[in-house]
């Protein structure tokens, strides 16, 4: 039992400590997000991309602010990741296959918000 607790404390400490040593940069990218589900989708999927620490999408401006580790990824890779999710990223167009998979409220033609 004690071993389990020590392992967990060690793991949690490692998470916190490793985050201090990262080189954090921020980038703001314009997307074609429309509704809440778009925001959730983009933020959720981006969190699994290598090097991305956090992302926050503002539905009013449609701009997603991404904090990332510049040693592991870069702005172009992040834009590409967003297109793979199904949204435009600045001048980069969304991947058509991924766009098809989006929920109704996220597609351009829809008036459903």
């Amino acid at each position, binding site marked *: *039992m004690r071993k389990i607790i020590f392992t*967990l404390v060690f793991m*949690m400490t490692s*998470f916190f400590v490793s*985050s201090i040593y990262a080189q954090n940069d921020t980038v703001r990218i314009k997307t074609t997000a429309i509704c*809440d*589900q778009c*925001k*959730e*989708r983009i933020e*959720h*999927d981006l*969190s*699994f991309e290598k090097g991305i*620490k*956090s992302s*926050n999408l503002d*539905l009013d401006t449609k701009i997603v602010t991404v904090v990332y580790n510049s040693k592991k990824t870069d702005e172009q890779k992040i834009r590409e990741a967003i297109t793979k999710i199904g949204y435009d990223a600045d001048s980069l167009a969304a991947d058509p296959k991924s766009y098809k998979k989006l*929920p109704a*409220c996220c597609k351009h033609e829809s008036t459903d918000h």
Partner: protein
Amino acid sequence: MLSKKYIQSIIVFGLTISSAFAQSLTGKIVEWDEGMKMEMPVIGANVYWSGTTTGTTSNEEGEFALTAPVSLPATMIVSYVGYQTDSILIKNISFQKIRIKKSVELKEVEVSSRQGSTIISTINPMNTEHVTEKELLKAACCNLSESFETNPTVNVAYKDAVTGAKEIQLLGLSGIYSQLLTENIPTMRGIAGVYGLTFIPGPWMDGIQITKGTGSVLNGYESTTGQINVEFKKPDDKKVPHFFLNVFGEENGNAEVNTFYRHVLNDHLSTMLMVHGNYMNRSIDRNGDGFYDLPASSQINLYNRWQYHSGKNVESQFGIKFLSDERDGGQIAADPLSKLRFITNIVNRRVEAFGKLGFVFPEKPAKSFGNIFQASYHELNSQIGLKLYNGIQKNLYYEGIYQNIIGNTDHQYKAGIAFLYEHLDETYNFHPVVNEQVVPGMFLEYTYSYLEKFKLIAGIREDYHNEYKWVFTPRLHGKYNFTDDFIFRFSAGKSFRVPYVYADNISMLASSRQLVFSEKLNPEKAWNYGVNFTRRWEVDHHEGSLTVDLYRTDFINQVVVDQYSDSSSVLFYNLVGKSYSNSIQFTLNQDVMENFGIRLAYKIDDVQINYQGLMQQKPLVAKNRALFNIFGATNNQHWKFDYTIVWEGKQKLTASIPDAEFGNIPAESPDYFVMNFQVTKLFKRFELYGGMENLLDFRQEHPIINAQNPFSTGFDATQVWGPIEGRRIYAGLRYQIK
């Protein structure tokens, strides 16, 4: 800013000058500043006549001068960003002082994921805790009976060691004194209530509302200690995934599958189909008493619901549920000499249909008329050793509620009628009993609000019971905000309940005691009163709260279930003397860091009943209980963890016939700790979770007294005060398509 003020002053001056030649309406716009405790002027508010496009703005003193309209009376509009627009009917030219209020601030869509897993309102006068889905996911939570593991208000325990029936405890009293509702429709009544808690699967639920005290008159006269309302996921809720699958497994052999599919057909109609199945084969007898620690069980549960919005006035819902549940337990092998085997076999079959039909009036948002229909058929067949109990129950329920305001939203009322039909055919050891209840009723509930500071809900209800004639149950709830962060709530109410002796006490069959009824049992009546203090605060953006609950329940009449007076019988009789429950609970919630939080709670339940002249603490109710929970997540929410430790105090026991092997049974159980732990890892398309319940592997060594001789006098499986099952290790997977 300075030049703006200057310009405004000039404008006002100019208007004032011009008004000398033409009539103008002057006034002042103010707001109440809670922090400064005084009236402050509102600068730059727009003031204009309704239907016109020109107007004026208030200056730095909040003052304005508006040219008189063409004719009076006329409506003047005051608007300001972030405040509620006010419209005032002006009948004559006179100085107008107008107080405007801030608009209710809409929370940002970016809901902070760290707090709010159990929400305590500052607006609701009723003492209601709202347990969100996030809180429900903290524990293994297979069904409703396991949804209270991190909640200090509700305890759940096995009623006995053989049937698998569970019971909740609220304010120290058994679950039969609280009302279970699904979406505000009373459910799991009578025989359905025996296992009812295990018939509501965890993933189907959207949230649970736990209200302490007698609750609203709308739901009937029965709730004494509280109301537990379960909200299911809805077909038109965009937050609910379109497809969901949960696969769960435990080391003890319990396997479970939950799935649902949600489909929106068009703007008006949407539907959802929810399926639950669980299967457990028996194989464990860790305490070596010859009885399975847990019964083998299997359940299939189906729910199909529909929602219809006409788009204008009509809102409706309907659904149908089907359930089949079977449990097999008891002795593993027959006695070599007698060749007898003590078996328990319990089968539940249920069909339920419900419908809601509501009429709303978009031009009059405070007015609505709702109708609730429910019909159910429930069959319970149980064999516990040599005792057989069967029941078939048919229910029909209707409720019609009309709500509106009187003058303004400070005075709201709900008036309605209800009808309950309940027919129960019971058989106990071949002795049939027929119970029929036909109860029409009417109710009226009035809500008075004074700003956000004071709210009062006064309700009265009158029902006509076919057997007990007129039943009057008044209820009062209120809240007073000393400040926005310090709230006081109080409630008082009366309850009425018709007992079903067998269904309410089915676990008494799991002992060799004779069930003795010396007289006709009268309905149970009680008064419940309580107060609640809630104090909230924020330290460095980390929210915290402290709530103190003090409740007292006084029974006017109660069916006393007496295991103390005669060691070979369970005596059932009407209360003579006092029966009360005093419950005090302290709960502290504090967010510690960005994604971490803790909860600490302590509760005292003093439940005393007059058992044939002797006041004793009710058996199997711990006088003291404590709970500590810590939860946390990584910044990206990819890892979540939960840890809970519960301390259960001593409980009174009633077995007085000694166990042939272990000797005398103590009068009191020991106190003990139970720990639970869970970890969740979020992946891109699915989620994995795993954990341990009862980490310390604490077990009640001998839950069954005289297990070696189940057919002798002295056999007692009702003295369950602690976990029978030891450590549970489980894991599961959740997959969803949004």
